[in-house]
């Protein structure tokens, strides 16, 4: 037995100490870590406490009002307290730790509140988010913890980096603080402040351009007041210009950099620019001076310069010349029209005028006067720049270099033609009258035929006036002629070209302007007739040959030196042959007398000129004739036998008295005159052609005028007369004893005072030529 064996000890639970730490202790450790981390975080992120002194604490809320930088909260008001002197408010701010380096003496604080004014609404965001304190950091200064807030927000330009410029204006107009600055109607900045200039002569408007737009401002950039509504132009051309609704209310500034000018450097900070009053002024393209005559009343301002209806400029102002000889208009030409300001450009004032040709320049009644300008392509190509022009009071003729055919027409009078009257070809307008001027012998009319139609004119072209209405009237009826309705009212010139193959004409060629189409188309011979007096004559007096019109007078002039009337006459195309050496012209007028009434038809048709062509075609043509004022005595009538009678007395013989043969009229007295020497009277008679054979050398002529009364003691009274007509008008009788050779024309007979008795018994059997 084992002595050592003792009673078994009671089984003891083998209690082991479990691991030192229960895993549950992890929880407090984790919690501790969280707390420590949070503590560290809060310490590390604790803000910087600064004091800012505000003038008043209105709108600042403790614990709520934030400090904003670029729209992000960087701090918060933690406390508000009155200052010791009770005049300001000390606001304690807790600023973001990251701001520590920016809190220097150059940093600025100001309170942003919503501001609603006519100038606009600023700080609108504060309506929702509440007021906030704006903070403008600046790292460059000395660090500090106490600040004084600005009483009001600083100008925009100082708040942000950007371009600050000064605009110098004559008047402030509607510009206000905060007025927008527009570029192409996009807001790129705003007016930050304005003030009178140092010399009180201008208003200096400070503007701020946002940095991203700063490059838009060049040194040649133009600024103008874009505020309000700009009404310009006239009734017919009303221009309403406004930038935006905002700018209407609060004004604004627009800027524009002329593209045509060479690249200028960008503007520098603080540059000074002029602020133009409006767009038109600002677009101050090119200054041009135009001298106008004194009588040209230019509108004060806004007189437009039009180039083919397009506005190219504006009269800025007008002033008298130094010597008071005219008016100088200072004109601003739009930049895009610079190329028009070259040598050769012409300016004239357009005024309203109301005339038969219509109302011209009517638009000026509504739109005011304007200045028209024109310049030819040639001059534009030549491109000789010019800045000083002579203006015209009225529209000038087209420039000689203008395209088209320039022609000169000479006429006796304008006869309804005026500037702008149409030039018609087959009643279609192909050109217009450019000008008219007086010359020594009529008027000179310049016309321009459009380039498209200039081939219609050549050497053979004939121009005539189609102005008004031409009434051709006579006993034979009348006709009315008019060009076009337009030409009727406005006057006009028509032309045609009979020969298309004729030679071409050059610019400046002279043509005659005929009064009417008929005249233009009479291609006959021109002769000159000389009259002692123009009584009863007129242009158009006809020239007749045997009752047939062979020509007419085209012109009547007084030759002062000679004291007679010189008339131009045009003979018909096929009637030129009447004008020969030896041709005679005389005037046929109505004759009213007791016994001799002649040419009564001329009372109605007017006087005419009778022509007797010179004998023989071979004689030389002549163009200058003297017209006898009466029917020539010594000329036969149209045909027949011309004879002369010699008498001691004329008796009652008159021109036109009949010549009787056996009491039958066979001829007439055509005239009489004193013979030379004046011992006798020559009477010219004309025997009709068919009775020529009745006259032989043996024929005897006696005066058959009057009544022969014989008294005889036994024979009683014997009264004899040839006829009643002869009794009244006088006459000449003749008798021939026997047939014989006909006498030559111009054969001279002696006229007996009374017939011998045997003459009366002669009765030869003379056959009458058929």
């Amino acid at each position, binding site marked *: 037995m084992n002595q050592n064996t003792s009673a078994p000890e009671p089984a003891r639970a083998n209690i082991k100490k479990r691991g030192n730490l*229960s895993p*549950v*202790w992890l*929880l*407090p450790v*984790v*919690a*501790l870590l*969280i*707390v420590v981390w*949070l503590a560290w975080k*809060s310490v590390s992120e604790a803000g910087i406490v600064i004091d800012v002194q505000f003038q008043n604490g209105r709108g600042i809320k403790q*614990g*709520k009002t934030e400090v904003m930088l670029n729209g992000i909260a960087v701090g918060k008001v933690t406390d508000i307290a009155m200052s010791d002197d009770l005049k300001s408010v000390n606001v304690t701010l807790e600023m973001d730790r990251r701001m520590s380096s920016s809190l220097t003496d150059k940093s600025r604080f100001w309170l942003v509140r919503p501001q609603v004014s006519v100038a606009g609404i600023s700080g609108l965001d504060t309506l*929702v*988010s*509440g007021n906030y304190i704006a903070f403008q950091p600046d790292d460059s200064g000395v660090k500090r913890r106490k600040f004084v807030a600005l009483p009001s927000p600083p100008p925009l330009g100082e708040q942000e980096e950007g371009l600050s410029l000064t605009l110098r204006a004559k008047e402030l107009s509607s510009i206000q603080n905060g007025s927008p600055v527009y570029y192409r109607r996009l807001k790129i900045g705003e007016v930050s402040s304005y003030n009178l200039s140092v010399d009180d002569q201008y208003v200096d408007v400070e503007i701020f351009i946002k940095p991203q737009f700063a490059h838009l401002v060049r040194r040649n950039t133009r600024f103008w007041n874009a505020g309000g509504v700009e009404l310009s132009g006239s009734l017919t051309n009303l221009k309403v210009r406004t930038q935006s609704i905002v700018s209407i209310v609060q004004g604004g500034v627009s800027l524009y950099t002329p593209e045509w000018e060479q690249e200028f450097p960008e503007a520098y900070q603080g540059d000074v620019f002029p602020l133009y009053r409006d767009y038109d002024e600002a677009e101050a393209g090119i200054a041009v001076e135009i001298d106008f005559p004194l009588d040209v009343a230019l509108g004060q301002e806004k007189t437009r310069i039009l180039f083919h209806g397009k506005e190219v400029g504006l009269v800025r102002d007008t002033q008298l010349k130094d010597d008071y000889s005219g008016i100088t208009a200072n004109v601003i030409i739009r930049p895009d029209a610079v190329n028009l300001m070259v040598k050769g450009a012409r300016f004239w004032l357009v005024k309203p005028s109301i005339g038969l040709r219509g109302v011209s320049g009517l638009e000026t009644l509504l739109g005011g006067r304007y200045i028209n300008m024109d310049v030819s392509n040639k001059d534009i190509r030549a491109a000789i720049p010019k800045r000083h022009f002579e203006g015209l009071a009225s529209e000038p003729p087209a420039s000689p270099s203008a395209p088209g055919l320039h022609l000169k027409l000479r006429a006796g009078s304008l006869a309804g033609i005026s500037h702008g009257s149409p030039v018609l070809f087959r009643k279609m307008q192909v050109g217009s009258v450019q000008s008219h001027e007086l010359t020594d012998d009529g008027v000179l009319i310049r016309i321009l035929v459009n380039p498209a139609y200039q081939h219609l004119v050549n050497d053979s072209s004939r121009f005539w006036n189609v102005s008004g209405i031409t009434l051709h009237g006579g006993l034979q009826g009348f006709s009315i002629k008019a060009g076009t309705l337009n030409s009727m009212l406005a006057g006009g010139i028509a032309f045609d070209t009979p020969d298309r193959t004729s030679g071409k004409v050059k610019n400046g060629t002279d043509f005659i302007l005929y009064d009417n189409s008929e005249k233009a188309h009479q291609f006959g011979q021109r002769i000159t007739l000389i009259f002692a007096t123009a009584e009863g004559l007129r242009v158009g007096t006809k020239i007749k040959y045997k009752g047939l019109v062979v020509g007419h007078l085209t012109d009547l002039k007084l030759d002062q030196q000679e004291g007679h009337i010189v008339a131009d006459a045009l003979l018909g195309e096929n009637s030129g042959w009447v004008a020969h050496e030896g041709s005679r012209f005389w005037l046929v007028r109505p004759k009213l007398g007791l016994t001799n009434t002649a040419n009564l038809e001329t009372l109605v048709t007017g006087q005419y000129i009778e022509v007797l062509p010179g004998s023989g075609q071979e004689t030389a043509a002549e163009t200058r004739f003297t017209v006898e004022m009466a029917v020539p005595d010594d000329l036969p009538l149209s045909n027949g036998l011309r004879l002369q009678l010699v008498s001691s007395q004329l008796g009652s013989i008159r021109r036109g008295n009949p010549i009787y043969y056996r009491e039958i009229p066979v001829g007439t007295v055509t005239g009489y005159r004193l013979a030379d020497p004046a011992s006798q009277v020559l009477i010219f008679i004309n025997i009709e052609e068919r009775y020529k054979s009745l006259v032989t050398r043996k024929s005897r002529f006696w005066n058959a005028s009057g009544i022969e009364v014989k008294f005889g003691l036994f024979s009683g009274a014997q009264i004899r007369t040839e006829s009643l007509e002869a009794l009244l008008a006088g006459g000449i009788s003749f008798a021939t004893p026997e047939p014989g050779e006909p006498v030559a024309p111009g054969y001279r007979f002696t006229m007996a005072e009374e017939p011998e008795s045997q003459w009366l018994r002669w009765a030869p059997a003379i056959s009458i030529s058929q």
Partner: protein
Amino acid sequence: MKTDPAEVRHWTTGAGVGLKLCLSCHKVCAEQTTHCPRCDARVYQRRQNSITRSWALTLTAALLYIPANLLPMMTVSKFEEGQPQTIFSGVIELMNQGMVPIALLVFTASVVVPVLKLLGMVWLLICVRFPRATMHRQQMLYRMIVWIGRWSMLDIFIISLLVGLVQFGKLGTVTAGIGAYAFASVVVTTMLAAMQFDPRLLWDAAEIKKP
């Protein structure tokens, strides 16, 4: 038979007579049984590591109570504007707006109760370590801690309700702050601490002291 109050103080514990209690179905089991014959739950004579766990959880809750009070509980924003509120600033705001009863309620639920719970837990744990005679008071305190625990979730309940309901975009939203999580953790850990604490330990402690 009538018992004398003095006799009541003299009790025997289940452990003293070799019995265990199933904490699930409250069946009295023999000392040897490891699992409850009725509900098959594990049966301990005393909860294991109860004190340690309670301490750890209490300590955790105490630590978390610091951020829960310092960090914002929630942010009520109207028109995107709002200040995060801590428990205390919220109470003060309610006071400023004249809602004193609500402020008191919130203050009680959010500040007083958690603090009392923590203090109570610590007190109980100390009592277990350094036994004292006033066991009745300790028992009452324990019961109160357990009862009060469910009410300390009031804040979290309100916050979760608000966060869920008030979501009107820019007009107004309520977002829970990190303090809410901390506070919720405090509540949970204190509840766990109270659950881990085995009140029977208080009896043991009292017994040690009695002889």
